[in-house]
């Protein structure tokens, strides 16, 4: 994917992107209440590309997507500095283009205007939020899934009807008006939808019409393939650290039993998978892993919480060594959970997660064994009075700090209590029932300063 340094100059977006105010330096222009945003958009998209609002497949909330008739859909990921870091963007006019315009044709008002705006940083704009929106490709499949599996049908649990392509498209259009517009403007989109639909649907031919019904087996297969691609190149480090490494850590028993697993896993099993996946997918894989990193950074809470729940039960580790296939299985499951939680409507999640296809039983047994071991280790630890081990190591720093703070406060209070004189303590014991507070007799005065 190409990186451009542009704000969405060319985009016909309705995304609010007013040009920076064209003032020269001296009087500070008032801040726009609709400040420019920084986007990283794909290269070479057709000029008809636009930003559309479609329902987010996972939670149904309207979200913005970048749509290019030839390249398909892109989702936006917001990358933001942590709140405490005060960062901002300085957006200045492109110097290169300025030079060209001045050298090339020095005549006409365009040049004059250019020079005016571009003088120094005067033409620039300072946004107060250092957010960046990154457009990354998203499989069209995810966007149409909510329409393929309406909630009602999934609730009943029994078979849905086969429906024609048109019916499905109607369902889609009824979800969001913008779909209708897109379909009428770009008929080629229909073909794309059909192709992606075919990948996850059972089909029946009635007359010359093909009817579709979403098949959870097929969907599982597609997702598993995606998940495999995702972990083929290794998960992003933050996910690897959080969901794989910590989950597979063997607890250290009293007798040192070093964590054996670190040496074995990754390089051994990944090549095998990459082989089956072949080269065509490699680019996709990369972007997907990018997506996942960025979302973690942007702290997409839904994804994060759902992960913890899965990994909590996945947390434990068996006694000695980790069998070589385990890390891969765990990675696969993590990827799969990630995909389902961030891109699938809730109704479809259960059938996918409970699908028998990628066999996670070895992983489950391994994790169960690990859990047991961990519990034992914890029990042992709590018996021994080893202070340094008093806390479970999975507690994060936040909790530790909170505890520290609490302790400090308590100590302070205690100290205060101790320093109280006897008379003060006695006054505290006085029965003040029937005595109204003085503030009910006297009016509060505003603090005079």
């Amino acid at each position, binding site marked *: 994917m190409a990186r451009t340094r542009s704000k969405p100059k060319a985009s016909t977006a309705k995304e609010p992107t007013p040009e920076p105010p064209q003032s020269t330096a001296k009087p500070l222009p008032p801040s726009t209440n609709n400040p420019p945003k920084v986007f990283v958009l794909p290269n070479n998209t057709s000029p008809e590309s636009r930003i559309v609002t479609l329902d987010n497949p996972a939670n149904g909330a309207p979200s913005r997507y970048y749509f290019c008739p030839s390249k398909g859909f892109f989702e936006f990921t917001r990358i933001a500095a942590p709140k405490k870091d005060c960062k901002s963007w300085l957006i200045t006019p492109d110097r290169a283009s300025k030079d060209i315009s001045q050298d090339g044709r020095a005549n006409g008002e365009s040049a004059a205007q250019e020079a005016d705006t571009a003088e120094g940083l005067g033409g620039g704009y300072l946004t107060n939020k250092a957010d960046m929106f990154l457009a990354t490709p998203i499989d069209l499949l995810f966007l149409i899934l909510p329409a393929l599996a309406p909630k009602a049908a999934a609730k009943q649990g029994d078979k849905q009807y086969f429906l024609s392509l048109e019916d499905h498209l109607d369902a889609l259009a009824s979800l969001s008006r913008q779909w209708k517009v897109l379909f009428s403007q770009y008929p080629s989109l229909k073909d794309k939808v059909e192709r992606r639909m075919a990948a996850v649907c059972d089909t029946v031919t009635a007359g010359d019409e093909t009817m579709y019904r979403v098949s959870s087996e097929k969907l599982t297969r597609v997702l598993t393939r995606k998940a495999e691609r995702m972990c083929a190149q290794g998960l992003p480090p933050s996910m690897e650290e959080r969901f794989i490494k910590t989950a597979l850590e063997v607890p250290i028993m009293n007798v040192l039993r070093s964590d054996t697993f670190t040496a074995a896993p990754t390089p051994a099993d990944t090549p095998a998978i990459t082989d089956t996946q072949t080269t065509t997918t490699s680019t996709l894989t990369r972007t997907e892993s990018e997506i996942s990193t960025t979302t973690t950074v942007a702290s997409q809470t839904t994804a994060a919480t759902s992960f913890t729940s899965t990994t909590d039960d996945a947390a434990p580790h068996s006694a000695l060594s980790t069998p070589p296939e385990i890390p891969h299985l765990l990675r696969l499951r993590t990827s799969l959970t990630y995909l389902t939680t961030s891109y699938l409507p809730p109704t479809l999640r259960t059938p996918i997660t409970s699908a028998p296809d990628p066999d996670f039983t070895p992983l489950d047994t391994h994790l169960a064994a690990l859990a047991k071991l961990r519990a034992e280790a914890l029990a042992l630890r709590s018996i021994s009075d080893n202070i340094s081990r008093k806390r479970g190591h999975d507690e994060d720093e936040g909790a530790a700090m909170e505890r520290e703070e609490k302790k400090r406060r308590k100590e302070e209070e205690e100290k205060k209590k101790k*320093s*109280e*004189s006897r*008379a*003060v303590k*006695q*006054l*505290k*014991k*006085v*029965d*003040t*029932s*029937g*005595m*109204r*507070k*003085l*503030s009910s*007799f*006297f*009016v*509060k*005065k505003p*603090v*005079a*300063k």
Partner: protein
Amino acid sequence: MLEARLSQANLFKKVVDAIKDLVQDCNFDCNDSGINLQAMDNSHVALVSMSLKTDAFTSFRCDRNIALGINLGSLTKVLRAAGNDDVLSLKAEDAPDVVNIVFESSSQDRISEYDIKLMDIDQEHLGIPETDYAAQVTMPAAEFQRICRDLSALSESVAIEVSKDGVKFTCTGDIGSGSVQLRSNTNVENPKESIEIEMTEPVALTFSLKYLVNFCKASGLSDKVKLKLSAEVPLLVEYPLSEGTNSFLQFYLAPKIGDEE
């Protein structure tokens, strides 16, 4: 900039001693009229209000209003280092971190100097209206202290009744009951012993003795104490400070209403 000089450290010492058991941290509000303090106890049923006017000081300068948030425990520790007859100076910058306290002993040519770190104290100030009290009793501070101490041995609370016969302090406790009645009298030989009662109508109110005993710690500050009462408003116990100035130390205490449970 604050610079205040008291000829007798003793006065300040006693003031702080008298209120340190009622409030622990409080703001000394300094302005060009003097040093004022208002604070409530932890339960907010009692209030102490102190005012040291400029003429109570041998010299006083305060350019800007300054609030000195001081822990009275710390202040007591420092004041303990002062001799009773030392000259005490308080100094502080306009936006102070510390208050500087100097004790000068004239007889011994000894100067000791202390800095106390200040605190930020959020305090609500209550506006206390001028009240015409229904009854006002002026009596020797020691007498009031003795009554409170004696009765507190019997009970938690005392009823104070002012009538044309005089003022009567009554209490009832587990072991029995007791009362002290004082009549208005004028002692010509020793005016300090006089008891004056001014009354527009009879008043009877009940108060917590523990609090009154606490107020009595100010007895050393003055020969006289004034009790001012009106129905259903807080009792005012006032000790005038350094005769001839308008400085005072006042305590307010909420009456007990309908506590016969």
